[in-house]
């Protein structure tokens, strides 16, 4: 039926389209991965802000959220270790089963 043969050109065009589509899939996958991470981080931050705003000041959840920065947290943990290692706590644990459970 055709009066001119464009099959070869049509095939070449299909290959060009495929190359473009393939490059786009690779690019979009990379972008999707990166944006998913970003989205997860943003969701976490949003949830934290929501909790902070909804918990009454001084309440346990409020304190749990507002623990301060990482350095402060490390400082508190260090203090806890020192307390646990202190002679007074060691002696007290000899006489208290409950204290031994807490320190375990």
């Amino acid at each position, binding site marked *: *039926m*055709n*009066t*001119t*043969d*464009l*099959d070869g*050109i*049509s095939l*070449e*065009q299909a290959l*060009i*389209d495929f190359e*473009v*589509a393939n490059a*786009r899939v690779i690019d979009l996958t990379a972008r999707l991965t990166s944006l998913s991470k970003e989205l997860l981080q943003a969701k976490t931050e949003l949830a934290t802000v929501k909790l902070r705003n909804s918990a009454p000041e001084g309440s346990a959840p409020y304190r749990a959220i507002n623990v301060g920065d990482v350095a402060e947290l490390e400082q508190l943990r260090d203090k806890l270790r020192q307390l646990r290692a202190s002679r007074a706590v060691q002696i007290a644990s000899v006489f208290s089963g409950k204290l031994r459970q807490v320190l375990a």
Partner: protein
Amino acid sequence: MSRPRILHCITVYNGRAFVPAAIESALRFDKTDADIDILILDDASPEPGWSEELAAFCRQRDVMYYRTPRNLGIPRNVSLGMLTAVKRGYDYVVISNSDVIYPATLMSAMLPVARQKGVGSVTAWSNNVSVYSLPNLDPNQHLKDQGVVDWLHATLNGHFGDAAMDIPAGISFCIMIPIDVVKDVGIMDPCFGRGYCEETDWSLRSLAAGYRICLAPGTFVFHHGRGSNLDAGIVSPNATTVPGNEAIIDLRYPQFRQQVEGFIHSGILARAHEDALSHIMRSAAQQFGYSLEVGPVAGNGTNENNVRVCLSPGGYSSSAQVAFRGFRLDIPFDPSDAGASVRAYFEREPSNINVFDRGAGSTHHDEALPGQLHKRNYPSFI
């Protein structure tokens, strides 16, 4: 300079009612300035028997015909034409819809524009070419005729010559692209699926590559509009575009809508419309004559070739309405000497003067011009 070779591609999808007229008018192309080959790209039209009929039609007229093995969609069908032009050593490719009527000397008018420095694409002017359209009340009634298209094209070409109007985006209803630009910018993006907005994307890519996007005001191609797309079911009868494809344009070119608004409000287009309509009216009046119509009621204006100038009586307005084949234009005139103003505008006397009146006024006219008035429609519509 050797004669340039042009591949004129007409994309087809069904369209039994209008495709033959488009091909016939393309076969009339004047080949003084270029060698022109016509390629019909049938995108696997599903209408029973139509592809066979079209193939035979093309074979009889020595026109290249190719039916794709499966439906590609407009962007990929257009790309096939662009790639064919590259592969077969053409200098220019023209991409065109199939619901059009071309003037015979279209290529001679488009080529000088396409040859200008930095031009990446040239869109023909038309009654239906997106925001650039020359406004007409009913193009199908008034303009869908080979003789009228030839006349309008010659008239506009005589006035605008090879002027190039820079526009925000090209329209592929009839667009000429130099092959070097195709090689540089590439083909249409297939992400536009079955079509619409692909040429906007392409021309904005060409703009980013440093090329000008131009419209040739010295041309005129009749375009029915949306014929192929309605047939293909891409757009519904009441819709003008594909929202999903517009969203891609918005994402890729966030400034584009503002650029179009800016272009429209710059006044360039309005000035071009006014210049074109004014020249069309004057040329038609010179060639076919014009009638001066005065009165509070309008006449019928049965002769489409006649330019009608309608004046309101009593000097209530300082502009007159001029009408010709669905085109409308307001022209300024001096109410104290309306006749002289109109004569000066058209640089000739009117072919006839018609006065339309009712009631008591008509009696006075009857007394003033005994035997010269034709009365119609009781009680007295002169």
